């Protein structure tokens, strides 16, 4: 190619400089355009997750989130009255390490519902925790329903062939319950 730029120092610097300039300009533009939609989808996902684990409410629990010891608490009210609190909790004991779940508590500490947020457990085995398996926690109070798999002397039916995931799920729920009783239940029941 006769008219190709030669690899002189000046040409190399100029060419790379111009390409980088144009490309960063393009990136900046796309970043600005997508910034709002990204925030909106994240907020929507957050509200959706809270809605999934709590009874009906009419405030915006994402407005006043309490962040204590790595757990996030979303307090939901209906006509001013507290109907429950969703707790975003985590465990590091999963088969693939860390995963996050959301647990909804009624004011007295009874588990309302739970949802799996972010997980990397084995497809087909551990990730069965997303299915109706987790419904066994619904309407149970951790003082009467021991949050441990039956193998460990608790009341939870483990997922077949996924005891580690089931234990980790119990660990996350326990963490949420303890945090809820310690940090939230006192202040809202007064």
């Amino acid at each position, binding site marked *: 190619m006769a008219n*190709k*730029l030669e690899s002189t120092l000046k040409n*190399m610097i100029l060419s*790379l400089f111009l*390409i980088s300039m144009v490309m*960063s300009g393009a990136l900046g533009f796309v970043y600005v355009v*997508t910034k709002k939609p990204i925030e909106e*989808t994240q907020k929507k996902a957050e509200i959706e997750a809270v809605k999934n684990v709590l009874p009906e409410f009419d405030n915006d629990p994402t407005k006043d989130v309490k962040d204590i010891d790595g757990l996030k608490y979303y307090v939901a009210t209906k006509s001013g009255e507290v109907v429950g609190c969703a707790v975003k909790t985590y465990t590091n004991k999963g088969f693939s390490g860390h995963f996050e779940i959301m647990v909804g508590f009624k004011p007295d500490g009874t588990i309302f519902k739970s949802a799996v947020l972010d997980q990397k457990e084995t*497809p*087909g085995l551990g990730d069965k925790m997303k299915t109706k398996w987790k419904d066994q926690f619904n309407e149970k109070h951790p003082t009467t329903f021991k949050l441990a798999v039956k193998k460990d002397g608790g009341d939870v039916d483990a997922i077949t062939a996924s005891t580690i995931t089931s234990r980790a799920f119990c660990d996350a729920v326990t963490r949420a319950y303890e945090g809820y009783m310690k940090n939230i239940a006192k202040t809202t029941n007064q």
Partner: protein
Amino acid sequence: MSSLKVFTNGLLKENPTFVLVLGACPTLAVTTAAFNGIGMGAATTFVLFFSNMLVALLKNYIPDKVRIVAFIVIIATFVTIVDLVMKAFVPDIYKTLGIFIPLIVVNCIILGRAEAFAQKNDVSRAILDGLGMGIGFTLAITILASVRELLGNGTIFNIPIVSENAKTMLIFILPPGAFITYGYLIAIFNQLKAKYNF
């Protein structure tokens, strides 16, 4: 080579997945469900299309000694664009593909086509090559993902094919199943290729 040949080259003769065996890392990792295959394929096709186009456009203005650097800057830009756009508008697919979207940057198909094709051809042919390669890659990983999803989970595109109580072969969803399925598909593809001589 006619324009049509340039396009079909990526689909059959030099299919990036089954013949060139390039970009095997995302191929093996994301093909647990057919939808992931389509999502990954579409993202890669988008990047290939634009990176091939830009490399062909700029080929005379990029000095030889820094061409790889320039290609990577171009590719990385489009990958980041895909990453942001998917995060904003298709969060569900974005969540399952996760880390493999940014990793398109190092997918050898893209740099390979820029180096081996786009920088030696004019813009229209480079675009056709990008599209052909991208669609070839998409089809191949979607087939691979469908086989794995069917054998491992009993569904294709989340549509149940076998009854819910049927035992599925879990191993096909797990990493070893990716290698097994990939190997068989390459063998079948090469058989067909030899037989019909495409």
